[in-house]
């Protein structure tokens, strides 16, 4: 029972808005101590956990390329390109991005897209360019809303697309787990197929909210700059 204190520490730390890096490190050490791990074992767990999770950090490998392109005006070009397309609003543009992000992820192509390589350099500036063309000005509150929605469209798209692909982590995990624990052989395709109804619902729900974004942005145009 007492090991759950570590979980409580995490919840409390986030609630009190203490630096998450500190919360996570301390909570990890505390739960490990409560679970009876030796100090050496804890150090080893931090080391092996870090070594095993390095692939997450590789997302930042593209930053020099993206930074270089930004230096030469990639964001500005993305904005200019959109400002020529009549009828394209921020919400509609993000809806199109959501669709393609989900579709590509459903075919296992999750590396097309993502915040470092697509949202920051291209999608967010395009959405802001569309808002600028529609409303004539973009206030700070609008910028925040556009950024939040661009990032959210990316995440929702990849989450509820990738599960329709048979060789993605979560599908393989389900198949491997039920096989190892209960000797139940589930075909990966059977599992992936049942992700499709939720994928469609995710597109409809989030897509509807993206279309309503335009109305919300219109209400923010009168803010003081």
């Amino acid at each position, binding site marked *: 029972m007492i*090991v759950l204190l*570590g979980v409580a520490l995490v919840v409390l730390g986030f609630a009190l808005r203490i*630096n998450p*890096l*500190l919360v996570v*490190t301390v909570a*990890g050490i505390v*739960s*490990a101590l409560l679970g009876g791990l030796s100090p*050496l074992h*804890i150090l*080893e*767990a*931090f*080391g092996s*956990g*870090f070594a095993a*999770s*390095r692939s*997450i950090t590789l997302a*930042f*490998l*593209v930053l*020099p390329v*993206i*930074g*270089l392109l*930004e*230096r*030469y*005006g990639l964001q500005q*070009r993305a904005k*200019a390109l959109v400002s020529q397309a009549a009828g394209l609003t921020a919400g509609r543009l993000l809806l199109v991005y959501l669709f393609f992000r989900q579709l590509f992820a459903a075919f296992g*192509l999750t*590396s*097309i897209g993502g*915040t*470092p390589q697509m*949202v*920051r*350099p*291209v999608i967010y500036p395009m959405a802001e360019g569309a808002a600028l063309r529609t409303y004539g000005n973009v206030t700070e509150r609008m910028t925040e809303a556009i950024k939040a929605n661009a990032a959210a469209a*990316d*995440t*929702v798209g990849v989450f*509820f697309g990738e*599960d329709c692909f048979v060789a993605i982590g*979560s599908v393989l*995990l389900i198949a491997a*787990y039920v096989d190892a624990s209960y000797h139940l052989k*589930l075909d990966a395709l*059977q599992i992936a197929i*049942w*992700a499709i*109804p*939720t994928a469609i*619902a*995710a597109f409809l*729900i989030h897509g509807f*909210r993206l279309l309503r974004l335009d109305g919300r942005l219109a209400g923010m145009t009168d803010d003081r700059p």
Partner: protein
Amino acid sequence: MIGPDWIYWLCGGFFIIVGVLIAFDRTHPRRWPTAAFWCLFGAALCAGNLVPSWLLGVAVIATALLGGFGLTGRGTVRTTSDAEREASAGRLRNWLFVPALTIPAVTVIVALGGARISIGGHALLMAGSQTLVGLGVATIVALIVGCVVLRPKNPAVAFTEGRRLLEAIGWAALLPQMLATLGLLFTQAGVGTQVGAIVQHIVPEHSRVFAVIVYALGMALFTIIMGNAFAAFPIMTAAVGWPILVQQMGANPAPMFAIGMLAGFCGTLCTPMAANFNLVPPALLEMRDKYGQIKTQIPTAIALFAVNVGLMLIVPFR
């Protein structure tokens, strides 16, 4: 056989270069701790399994504490002005997209094509690392294409521009890996088995609706705490999904588990513990509200969770 190690060296090398650039920056507000943060982080990425794991653990904890106690800061990096960027965008036009699109294109080509190549009966790319190798190759190709298209006076400017973006993310860059490690520590300390035992106590024997809601809600809540539906799935499935829903009530396991996992994904949309999805993007987009993306996602998560519960009540019991 080509494995992913060299890509970690590439990424670690980039972080170390950023650390060195900061060390030489006299105007940086937190010069030495920030330089130490990126150099240590980079060294740890390079070291990986090459050093004893306790030593790597010491380096990782030291890096985390540098960021955790707020000792790191963000410097100002000299870059082009908005006017210069507008002018350059007008001149280069759509050529600017070519290096950007090179990254996904080459990644996919290497990941899909490279998997088929074998030399003397051995696969060229190590199984499971094709996409990572693809990303590494794609980054190098895109950097070369970028230098050809943009013709920067000094190609090393890519590193200062990379530093600008990496410093925008700051210590949050380490958070996803620390959360993955926390998940590992939770498992080793037995947090999962405890939660499973508690959940098993509260499910009544014969209520299908209640059992489905407990399974789905448990997936979502446990995912919110752990930041990852993968960690929640074995616990909730062992406690409720398998013994009660499948064995006792005769649910079809494939749709039950598939949609149960997606109920967990709804939790992922709501939690700062899924830092690489929910906290790193706002940092990289330089948002003022670092929880702004989560706030945007919560309504979608709630509606989609309800849809998932509805599907779980109907589909597996047909």
